[in-house]
Every structure is written in C-alpha cells, then in structure tokens.
C-alpha cells in the first residue's frame, strides 16, 4: 500500500511523524525565508535586487 491513500478527492497522509518532520522543515525554511525577506526589506529596501552602490 502507498503512503498516500486517495479516497476520492481527499488525500490522507499515512505517517504523521514524517509529515510533522516535513512540516517542521518547511516551517523552518519558510520562517527563515520570511526573516531574510523582512531583514532585506526593512534594511536594504529591496527584496529581489542586489544592493548596489547607494549614493
């Protein structure tokens, strides 16, 4: 049996531990990304650009 059980349109995870781990990892990455975005935006006022020579 596969870990994902499809029952119609719903998808269910078979193992919650690994889901939790993945969720944790995703959360950490998201939080990190958010933190970096926050820092980048409020400090350098840019998000996706390389901070150049501000004159």
């Amino acid at each position, binding site marked *: 049996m596969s*870990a994902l059980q499809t029952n119609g349109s719903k998808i269910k995870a*078979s*193992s919650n531990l*690994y889901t939790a*781990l*993945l969720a*944790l*990892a*995703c959360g*950490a*990455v998201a*939080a*990190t990304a958010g*933190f*970096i975005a926050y*820092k980048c935006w409020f*400090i*350098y006022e840019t998000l996706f650009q390389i*901070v150049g020579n*501000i004159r």
Partner: protein
Amino acid sequence: MSPLTKILIVLLSLFSLFLCGTVVTYVGTAKNYKNAYEDLKTELAASQKKNVSYQQQLEEKKRQMDELSTKLDAEIAKLKVERTQIEQNLKDAERAKTALDEKVQTLASEALKFEQTVGGMADSLKKTREELDQTRAETIKLAKNLNEITTSLEEKMAQLQSLDAEKKRLLEEKTKLEQQISGKTTEPTVSGPVTVVPDSATKAIEPPVSAVLQGKVTAVDGSLVTLSIGSADGVEKGMIFHVIRNDSFMCDIKITDVDTEASAGTVQLLQQPPKVGDVASTTW
C-alpha cells in the same frame, strides 16, 4: 513509505533546520551596512560642512594674515628706513665726535701752551715788579740825593751871598782905607759897613752838619707811624726817615709831631707797610 524516504525526510529536516539556523544566525549577526553607510554619510556631510567652515576660516585667517603681513612689511620697510637714517645719524655723530675730540686735543694743547705763556708772563711780571721796586728805591735814593744836593746848593748859594756881602764890605773898607791913606788929613770916620751881613750867612758859612738819626718803629696806625726817637735825639719836624727791613726799602716817614723821646709822622712813598720793629733812619 520506504525507509529510504523516511531517512531522506529526516535528513532533509535536519539539514534544513541546520541550514535555517545558520542562515538566521548569520543574517541576525550580520553588520547593518546600510545604517553604517548612513551614519558614515551623515558624518561625511558633517565633516564636509566642517571642512567648508574651516576652509572659510582658513581663508579668513589667510586674508588677515596677508593684511597683517602687508602691514608688517610696510612697518618693516619704515623701520628699515628709520634704521638707515639712524645709522646715518650715528655715523654723522661719530664723525662729529672725532672732530670734537681733535678740537678738544688742540684746545688742551693750546691751553697748556697758554698756561706756559701765562706762567712765563707771571715770572716776567714778577721780575718787572722787582725791577720796578728797585727802580723806585733808586728813584727815592736819587730824590734824596737830589734833596741833599739842593740843600747843599742852597747853603752854598747862601754862603756865596754872604761872601759877596763880605766882599762888598771889604771893598768899602778898602776904599775907606785908601781914602784914609790918600787923604791922611781927614780923620777916619768910623762908619759901619753899608751892607748888612745876614745872620743866616754866618750860619751858612759853617759847614752843614748832617746828623745821622736812626730809630725804630714803635707803633703803626694806618698812615701814622710812631718812632722811638724824639727831640732829645735831634729829631725835628719835617725830617724824613727811611724805613728799612732786611736791607729793603719799605717807605718814608715825614715827621709831623715831635716829642722828647718819641716822634710821629705820616707814611710817604709806600712800598710795603711798615711794622713795629722796623729800622727808620735818615740815611740809607
């Protein structure tokens, strides 16, 4: 789920956690270069402002310094001119000083010569005075001799007159005797001589007796002098005594008052004032 998937999931989770942790740590501790830049920028602006103000002050100071230097240069030029003038004046003063020193030396030598000539003239004056005194003394002697000669001449004249009278008397007697001799008849008449022989002639016949009278000065009161001899010694009014001290003539004294043992007279032909104790004599 296969075990490999599980393992990968676990590893992925761990690595992602690790990575996120390092990234967060790195980002959190990273230096805020923008703030630093902003701070530096403001500091730079402030420094530039300060620099501008300092440059302005510097320019102001330079301008003041230029003005001061021009003033000082002008004063230095003035002082240099004054210094040259003063140096010139100093040279002139030194020249004048040397000239005056030479003048002083010449005047000193001339003064010395003048002093020597004055000394010589004083000596000659002294000699001349001595000669004058000697001449006066000789003059007095000569005057005295003249007086004596005049008195003797007068006496001789008187003698001559008396002799003439005697001669006339004798001639008359001779004629009378001749008449008596020739006449023989007429009685001799006793008649006195026609001419009268003056009494002074008899006295004049006698040789003049010049008595040497000598005395001493006993008192001196201005021009009045008292002598130690009087009428008892033969002093008479009008006599002239010569006052002598150490064989030098002092003065003459003409007797005006005569006492028995003293006499007084006035000073004449004063050479030096007489003193008590000086010898007074009628001769030299």
